[in-house]
């Protein structure tokens, strides 16, 4: 159901927002603004008309945001089944593993609460308490994204993550105990029989997901712990996946974008099987990948 397509019913929240906007919207712009605009435009030269076709207005901005949805969808594709027991939500500071930086490490700031997407301070240690306690820091240009996110369709699985401010890369920590048979066709349901409990069980299942070109698994480390890493590159044309009615389903509205890769690292953190996912799509895979690598170097599991 699309609430944006002429909704027939108005929820209390929607009607409240409408009243709020009507009340808060100023009836007229300040006169000084008009003068500012006209002065500024009078002294601004117009560009010459283009001799060749224009680039679409949305080309630059829409794709990264679409890719964000793709990233979210692929994360959520893996959020299913009965979740493993995860750390409690008691908000206690975690002492991070000392960073290699010679500078003194400040206490990590807990990333909890949502749903705002505040910018993160470069170099500042941050912590998630779920799905496992983890600390990390980020380079410039990254935002808090998800905390304690659970797939509402299955009410299982748990994820927390960050995203860059251009929505071209994300790093998400996820715990699941089952995955979809085919993330692009969620109606097929979850793996049956369900996924086994070990790291190898999940790695094997991920290595055989349909609809992707899959590289790996290869041996890796995350936060000093041994991990198996795979790369999934979607093969379906953009817009051909299901899940079109709800972004919480495995694929986003509009389908996924056949570019970039989801890198999945599977490891055991104090007995909990964790996936560390990163999406490094076009148009700047190199920049995004470099940022992700920088972040992953700082990951610690206290």
């Amino acid at each position, binding site marked *: 159901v699309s*609430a944006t397509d002429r909704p027939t019913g108005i929820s209390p929240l929607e009607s409240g927002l409408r009243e709020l906007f009507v009340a808060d919207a100023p009836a*007229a712009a300040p006169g000084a603004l008009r003068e500012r605009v006209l002065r500024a435009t009078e002294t601004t030269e*117009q*560009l010459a008309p283009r001799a060749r076709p*224009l680039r679409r*207005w949305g080309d630059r*901005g829409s794709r990264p945001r679409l890719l964000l949805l793709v990233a979210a969808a692929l994360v959520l594709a893996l959020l299913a089944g009965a979740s493993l027991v995860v750390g409690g939500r008691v908000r206690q500071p975690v002492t991070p593993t000392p960073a290699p930086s010679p500078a003194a490490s400040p206490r990590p700031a807990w990333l909890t609460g949502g749903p705002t997407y*505040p910018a993160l301070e470069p170099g500042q240690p941050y912590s998630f308490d779920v799905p496992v306690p983890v600390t990390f820091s980020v380079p410039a240009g990254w935002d*808090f994204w998800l905390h304690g996110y659970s797939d509402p369709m299955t009410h299982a699985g748990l994820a927390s993550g960050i995203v860059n401010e251009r929505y071209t890369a994300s790093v998400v920590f996820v715990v699941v105990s089952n995955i979809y048979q085919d993330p692009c066709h969620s109606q097929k349901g979850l793996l049956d029989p369900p996924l086994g409990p070990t790291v190898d069980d999940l790695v094997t299942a991920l290595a055989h997901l349909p609809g992707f070109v899959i590289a790996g698994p290869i041996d890796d480390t995350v936060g000093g712990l041994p991990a198996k890493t795979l790369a999934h590159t979607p093969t379906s044309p953009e817009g051909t996946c299901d899940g079109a009615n709800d972004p919480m389903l495995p694929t986003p*509205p509009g389908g996924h974008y056949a570019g970039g890769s989801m890198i999945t690292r599977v490891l055991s953190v104090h007995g909990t099987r964790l996936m560390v996912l990163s999406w490094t799509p076009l148009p700047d895979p190199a920049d995004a990948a470099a940022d992700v690598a920088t972040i992953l170097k700082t990951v610690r599991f206290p």
Partner: protein
Amino acid sequence: VPALIDLPARQVLVERAMAGDHDAFTRLVDDGLDRLHAIARLILHDPDDAQDAVQDALVHAWRELPRLRDSERFEAWTRRLLVNACHDLARRQRRHALVHLAASVAEPAGPDGWRAVDERDRLRRGFARLPVEQRVVLVLVHYLGLSGPEIAAMLELPIGTVRSRLRYATRAMQAALEADDRVGSPLGEGAR
């Protein structure tokens, strides 16, 4: 704020402005400034930021007008430029949001933090906590009354993206209100 100029007349003005006629552009500004300003105020909250965003958008529009392919899309185009300007302003001012996040982390929720508030203030605070892209879609839907396809056309986004943004925004708004119930402090006022 109703449009003062009918569509054919506006199109003539747009085409004149595209040819460099600043007087025509001035009339277009007079026709649309109040609405653009209202949109920016709702999205950004801050009156100074809103004026900056409107100015940025209109200066951009003037400069780029000769390259506008379809004069009929002038209004949607300027709104899109305004939304982009709001994003840019918010991006430049992210550090404010970080301060408030730190405050929210440092202050535990508890019954002492709760206070009865007017429902509109509660909504206003919840809305202020949302990231700017979610505010944008809520304003376009619930203030301008645009449909999903209209927003998609205006912002040149896939319709699915618009729908999902609205869902995220609605859910985030509900979560913000719930958080407000628990904490009762306007932590998000500075979030942009």
